[in-house]
């Protein structure tokens, strides 16, 4: 009789299991808090005086190259993209500019990694202190009859994680 009670209890247990089942699965929820990025135009790309009909180049490794100072999270990858002018302007006159060159470094010297500035993403990495220095150069090509005067344009650097 005791055995039959045991069997009955087991049967009840099996029947209560039958017809239901559950399963579980986990995923992680993740986020990385980063230091906000700052970008500061530190030095203009200044060609100085140029001559009609004579192209003038300032390379990104030149001390006169344009420079942006970037701060963000330490030792972290970022992506840089540029908005580049096709011309410098003086009123209605255009002075073509192109052949852009770039160089990024974790110190304020233009001896780091070369790249070609563009609207696409260029990868770079901040220093252990969260600093990044970006240098930019280009070539201006004044025409033989280029109107005299001061020409300016704007280069915009965007940096994201």
């Amino acid at each position, binding site marked *: 009789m005791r055995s039959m009670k045991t069997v009955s209890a087991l049967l009840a247990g099996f029947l209560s299991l039958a017809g239901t089942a*559950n399963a579980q699965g*986990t995923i992680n929820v993740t986020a990385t808090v*980063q230091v906000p990025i700052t970008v500061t135009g530190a030095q203009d790309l200044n060609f100085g005086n140029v001559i009609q009909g004579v192209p003038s180049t300032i390379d990104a490794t030149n001390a006169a190259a344009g420079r942006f100072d970037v701060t963000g999270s330490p030792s972290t990858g970022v992506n840089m993209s540029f908005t580049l002018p096709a011309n410098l302007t003086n009123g209605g006159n255009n002075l073509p500019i192109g052949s852009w060159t770039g160089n990024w470094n974790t110190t304020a010297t233009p001896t780091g990694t070369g790249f070609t500035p563009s609207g696409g993403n260029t990868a770079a990495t901040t220093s252990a202190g969260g600093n990044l220095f970006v240098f930019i150069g280009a070539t201006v090509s004044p025409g033989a009859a280029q109107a005299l005067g001061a020409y300016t344009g704007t280069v915009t650097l965007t940096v994201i994680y």
Partner: protein
Amino acid sequence: MPWARRFPFLVLFLTCTAGSLRAQVGVVGVRDLAFGNVIPGIQTIVSPSDPVRSGMWEVSAQQGDRVRVRLTLPARLTAPGGSQMPVTFGNNDAIAVSDAPGATPVTFNPRASQNFRLVTSGRFFIFLGGRVTPAGTQAPGAYTATALLTVTVF
């Protein structure tokens, strides 16, 4: 077990019966809910329909099953140093969709249990979105938590 020696066929019967009647269901975590890089003071939202960053589970049951879906969600993410960051889930931050061709996704509140009948297929997916709200002084670092999906066939 003397009773087992006396009723060997009964034991076999019980074993087979339980094995054949018990519903089958499996849940696999496929993809983390990943907010990626976030900036202090700026809320970041991931939609459940985001094909890359939304959380994702795969559920395998039987066509025709009735299932109950229940999510156990974190209220905050935690960094190794102990810093915490709130994470919240809105009424439309979960999607269930069958793997059957042409299946219509069902949006639901991930904070409430949902019942579904698996009409066209026993395999379906649950997607999870949400939002994190780092404080303006939120400490930098990697924050994590766990989300649990429980599926019951009934």
